């Protein structure tokens, strides 16, 4: 496609009558409700996935690499066989790769802020948190794509779940938790100056938190102080719950802790994000 814009559209003079007709008073429609506004922003998120497919490469490639590397590199050493280990880490990799995607919610928001488009959104008569809720909803689709890639690759490598219905259930739980974690990073996204800083801060926080869990190893082998941390880490509970669902056992306690943590994160960080979005600047 030619990138010389002036020769295409700019050269035609604006026909006064057409302009006049387009500007002549249009009836003001009734304001959209909160849900409709959020869905429109969700649609915007989808369009971005369509126009910038490169962003999806991060989401899909990283988990693929992790899954292959960990299964074949450590599988024999940690679990005796790659098949055993794949069965063990697949739910963990699912959790880890989707959680890492949530950082992008903050990066995207920060990018928006550095451009003028936020002014447009803030000067429209819409439900104030709609741009944020819609964006995070749109990102959930991205999480779902990441989750699907991990599970599909796992199945191709020989992963066989104990309960087939448990697989989408586990994916849903992970996406739900990610939705709440995304609010933490949107808050970070509003506090940091540049998109890169958001990305670095996000990964610096997520790396230790995901590795210091039961994603890769059984915590029994760990020193007691580390095991104590791993046991309270909500990510461990998310992994245990997902593992359980895929194996066909429902760990209600872990699911409860995951949902409780998700609710708490959303309750604190969603309003904080909204407040910052409204007042920053």
């Amino acid at each position, binding site marked *: 496609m030619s990138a010389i814009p002036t020769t295409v559209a700019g050269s035609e003079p*604006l026909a006064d009558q057409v302009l006049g007709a387009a*500007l002549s008073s249009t009836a*003001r429609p009734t*304001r959209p409700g909160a849900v409709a506004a959020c869905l429109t922003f969700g*649609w915007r998120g989808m369009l971005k996935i369509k126009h910038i497919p490169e962003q999806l490469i991060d989401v899909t490639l990283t988990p693929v690499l992790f899954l292959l590397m960990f299964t074949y590199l450590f599988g024999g050493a940690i679990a005796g066989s790659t098949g055993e280990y794949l069965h063990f880490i697949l739910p963990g990799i699912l959790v880890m790769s989707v959680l890492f995607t949530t950082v992008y919610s903050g990066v995207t928001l920060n990018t928006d802020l550095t451009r003028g488009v936020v*002014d447009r959104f*803030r000067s*429209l008569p819409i439900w104030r948190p709609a741009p944020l809720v819609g964006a995070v909803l749109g990102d959930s689709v991205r999480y779902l794509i990441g989750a699907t890639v991990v599970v599909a690759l796992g199945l191709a490598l020989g992963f066989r779940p104990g309960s087939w219905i448990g697989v989408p259930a586990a994916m849903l739980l992970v996406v739900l938790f990610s939705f709440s974690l995304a609010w933490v990073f949107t808050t970070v996204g509003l506090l940091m100056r540049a998109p890169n800083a958001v990305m670095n801060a996000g990964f610096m926080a997520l790396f230790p938190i995901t590795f210091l869990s039961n994603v890769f190893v059984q915590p029994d082998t760990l020193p007691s102080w580390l095991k104590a941390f791993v046991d309270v880490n909500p990510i461990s509970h998310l992994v245990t719950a997902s593992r359980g669902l895929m194996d066909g056992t429902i760990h209600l306690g872990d699911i409860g802790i995951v949902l409780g943590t998700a609710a708490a994160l959303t309750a604190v960080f969603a309003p904080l994000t909204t407040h910052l979005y409204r007042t920053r*600047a």
Partner: protein
Amino acid sequence: MLAIEASDLVKSFGSTRAVDGVNLAVRSGAVYGMLGPNGAGKTTTIRMLATLLRPDGGTARVLGHDIVTEADAVRGLVSLTGQLASVDEDLTGRENLVMVGRLLGYSRGQARMRASELLEAFGLGDAAGRLVKNYSGGMRRRLDIAASIVVTPELMFLDEPTTGLDPRSRNQVWDIIRTLAGQGTTVLLCTQYLDEADQLADGIAVIDHGKVIAEGTPGQLKASVGRGTLHVRLLDPEQRPDAERVLAQALNAGVHLEADPAALSAACPPEPEPAAEAVAELSRSGIAIAGFSLGQPSLDEVFLALTGRPAEEDQAAEGEEIAA
């Protein structure tokens, strides 16, 4: 009836008082210009009036609604075209307009129709399906204005709508603003160019260091400056010394010799007659003229006349405004 009534608006960023007691009264249906250099407080004032910034002091009513306590009502009636084009670069032109239409409450079909109508009217029909990041500055600006009038606003804020545009794009934007005003929309226009305010505005407030330092019609402002500039270009550079002498006599003013050896300019009264007389005098003296033009006083000259010093860019305040 007044579309904008602001009294004593104040906004500080850190220790910088970006807006320091601005008073404005803009009649409904008018095009009102705010003229000032970068960092004078124009953008901050507009952002407060458009409810994007909360003032630290003072009050303002926009279309009868208080900008703080009734911000939502104000948002329902105004639209803003900011200094950074408020469009989404990662979407196409059409998607941008459909999105804004949906957010204003149009159905999908209505939003699509309105988007097509505006794209055609703004000369963006062929570029509708291209990503905005590939648009030229002029196209982006037109799309931005189109997004602001998906529903015709009663009041439109335009923050330096032609800064950085080539002359043709600038004329297109001016056409749009004139048409909009012709249909009854009140326009508050920020600009650094007296020329632009002169072309479009019925009234002008000159802003400096966060304060309104002069107010009036473009004519009154120019008269207060008391001078324009006559530029003359000769066919034969050899005749320049003669031309200099004739002009100095006819206009009773100092003559400036330009870098171009055939060009010279002289200060003259703002009315066209003395300048016309001076040009006629050149012809009568047998000096051949390639062309001449009557320049308006620049922002610098207005500032010089009003404050005794040229318009200076306040870098510190500018940084704050962009950050804001």
